[in-house]
């Protein structure tokens, strides 16, 4: 065994994040670590990377016991980590980002040409070519990820920890990443892959360790298991298979006609987009991110000005109205980027929950605390939001738990129309099940939902109708019953629909 972690226990006060966890890694292996939000995956990896000290337990590298008190220790033992939130310097070039910490130098001078040469050589060696002189801030997220991986390779890593590597990538970039990981594994590098996405894990992993509530619930060979068995290990019970009830579509709730936003580029951001969402209907919008979905959401919700075209909500024209006015007419919005649009990081859980509900919880302009705490507290228990208390600052919640809070808040608006953009980004299967269930419940009760997601499985599972966006236009409309993943993928890539 290359790496063994035995009986690892980590407690914070009286909370146990890891309890007697055993984990091992062979050379050249891709070992996936899965579990729900807060199951202790990240804690375990932080211990391995020297960012936390275990309360008890031991780590052995090639049989020899080791202990790391800082990431530098881990790095010097050839362990590298690619963090979920990239640790990059956007104004620096790719080469600078890769060599930082071990820069090639002549005397005290930083030899940037040598750095570029090293970077090119590294890219060639591992089959991940990059332009060393390009600024990282100008790179796509997929390319930034590649830079992160090259950086840990440059540090000499033999064991590479990837924390939720595919969360921010487009489907194509995910595919490229998985191929790159497999390629590196055949060259003898070993990977620990933390992920929620069972499909990706089944595609790439050799072995899988499942954590639940800080304990290992199973370590299995990938070939002996399937996504269903894994989710049972993760959640501790069978997942309910949801099915959509067929209900007749009602009156149109949202009607958008010919929305165009020119933008500053040569191609318009939105090019004559027309769509309608009816009562008791979920309309899914599929597409590779950056093809106009964000602009469409912002145009409908009033966050962005429309150049031509009109938006109607419940038969009334809302084009160009204030965001607040539109929301009051009956629109709720689960935004795609929870940190930018969804929460205030420095505000508490209760305060974040109150956003948009403040009018109902005030008297003479003074907020009434008990009602607020009851409302938010009920969401916390219903959605299983893991938080210290209602006064915990939002920034201390994990991404998945924040997402649950936002979903709960927007669903509680009880509006006839809901925009759900990436509603399950970064949440685990258990929470996903709850959120999907709630969305379907809203639909069955006659709500109209516009679902935007880069996860095709999510689109296919929930939508009644599917629209595909490409370069600011809607390039195809499919019925849920006859839509296939292949067909949608083809449309998403700009291909023509056949038949």
């Amino acid at each position, binding site marked *: 065994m290359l790496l063994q972690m035995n009986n690892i226990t980590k407690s914070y006060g009286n909370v146990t994040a890891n309890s007697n966890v055993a984990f091992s890694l062979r050379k050249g292996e891709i070992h996936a670590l899965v579990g729900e939000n807060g199951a202790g995956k990240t804690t375990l990896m932080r211990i391995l990377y020297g960012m936390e000290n275990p309360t008890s337990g031991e780590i052995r590298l090639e049989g020899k016991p080791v202990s790391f008190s*800082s990431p530098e220790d881990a790095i010097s033992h050839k362990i590298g980590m690619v963090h979920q939130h990239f*640790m990059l*310097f*956007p104004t*620096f070039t790719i080469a600078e980002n890769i060599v*930082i910490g071990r820069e090639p130098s002549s005397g005290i001078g930083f030899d940037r040409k040598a750095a570029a040469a090293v970077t090119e050589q590294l890219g060639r060696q591992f089959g991940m070519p990059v332009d060393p002189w390009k600024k990282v801030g100008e790179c796509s997220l997929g390319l930034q990820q590649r830079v992160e991986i090259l950086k840990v390779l440059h540090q000499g890593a033999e064991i590479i920890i990837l924390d939720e590597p595919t969360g921010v990538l487009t489907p194509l970039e995910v595919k490229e990443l998985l191929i790159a990981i497999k390629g590196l594994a055949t060259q003898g590098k070993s990977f620990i892959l933390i992920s929620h996405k069972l499909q990706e894990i089944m595609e790439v992993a050799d072995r899988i360790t499942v954590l639940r509530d800080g304990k290992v619930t199973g370590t299995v060979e990938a070939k002996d298991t399937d996504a269903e068995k894994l989710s049972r290990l993760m959640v501790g019970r069978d997942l309910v298979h949801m099915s959509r009830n067929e209900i007749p579509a009602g009156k149109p709730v949202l009607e958008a006609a010919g929305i165009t936003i020119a933008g500053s580029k040569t191609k318009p951001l939105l090019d004559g987009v027309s769509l309608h969402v009816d009562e008791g209907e979920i309309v899914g919008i599929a597409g590779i991110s950056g093809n106009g979905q964000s602009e469409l959401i912002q145009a409908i919700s009033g966050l962005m000005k429309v150049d031509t075209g009109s938006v109607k909500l419940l038969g009334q024209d809302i084009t160009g109205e204030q965001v607040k006015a539109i929301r009051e007419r009956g629109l709720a919005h689960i935004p795609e980027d929870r940190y930018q649009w969804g929460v205030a990081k420095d505000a508490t859980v209760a305060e974040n929950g109150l956003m948009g509900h403040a009018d109902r919880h005030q008297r003479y302009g003074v907020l009434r605390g008990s009602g607020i705490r009851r409302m938010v507290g009920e969401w916390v228990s219903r959605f299983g939001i893991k938080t210290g208390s209602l006064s915990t600052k939002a920034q201390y919640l994990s991404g998945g738990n924040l997402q649950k809070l936002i979903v709960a808040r927007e669903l509680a608006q009880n509006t006839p129309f809901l925009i759900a953009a990436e509603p399950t980004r970064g949440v685990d299967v258990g929470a996903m099940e709850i959120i999907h269930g709630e969305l379907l419940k809203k639909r069955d009760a006659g709500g109209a939902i516009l679902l935007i997601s880069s996860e095709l499985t999510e689109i296919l599972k929930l939508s009644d109708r599917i629209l595909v966006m490409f370069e600011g236009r809607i390039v195809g409309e499919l019925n849920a019953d006859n839509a296939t993943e292949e067909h949608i993928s083809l449309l998403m890539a700009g291909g023509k629909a056949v038949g």
Partner: protein
Amino acid sequence: MDHLFDVSLFASTLRLVTPILLAALGGAICARVGLFNVGLEGLILIGAFSAIVGNHFTGDVFASIIFAILCSVLFSMLFGYMSIHLRANVIVVGIALNFLALGLTTFSLRAIFDVKGAYYNKDMVGLPKWDIPVIKDIPWLGDVISGHSPLVYLSILLVIALHLFLFKTVTGFRLLAAGENPTAAKSLGIKVTRIQYGAVLMCGVLCGLAGSQLSLGNVTMFTEGMTSGRGFIALVATMLGQSNPIGVAASSLLFGFMDALSIRLQGFALPTHFTMMLPYVVTIAAMLFFKDKGYMQEARKANESSR
């Protein structure tokens, strides 16, 4: 107008620009590690006062400059300790230090010299004037460039040195990294706190030099609050120059020129208080050009998120 833009105007520009430039370079280093140092004004004031104190007790110019640097560094370490170690808000700490410096120098002026308002002693030695060989014989140019205090020339060398340090050395590169994304820098084993303290220390040295030039170079005296906003002008020069040594030098030169011009205009029967507004009017105008330029905000944001 011939009288207005003559040799002595440009010569005095060079002299007046030095304190601003030195302090602005200090501010630039701090800004580069994500600490926006509003306390420059106070640091220069401490430097100016302690240069006079050193001069009074030792009678030696070199010793007084060293003493001024020591005192400014001590004061800047206070800024560093509170904003880096205790994680206090940098703006609040900076403003507090400005007022502390003002009170402390005024109080010490009375305690040490037993005078109010200003201290002047004809026995005190000012900074020497250096004549640059060859250049001093060039007509016009020689009169402008030659015959200044060593600190004037040092400040120009420091611009180049700082530029090379930041953009050509490994240590400089790491300093930039620590400012741009402290969390990422820490994850790579870069000692962010140590770099931040180093930057604050450098800033203290530079402000000590700036203060010495102010009280020993331009005149040989100390008056209460004699910095009169130069620290804030330096701050603007830092921002306008986007914390880039060359840019900082260029914008400092602009403000120094305005300073010299305002003094010169007083000789043209314009009301003193009116001409004294000139540098500040230009400061405000300059701010219009500084429209939230990217990296400073990035640095501040990154700094906040790491806290």
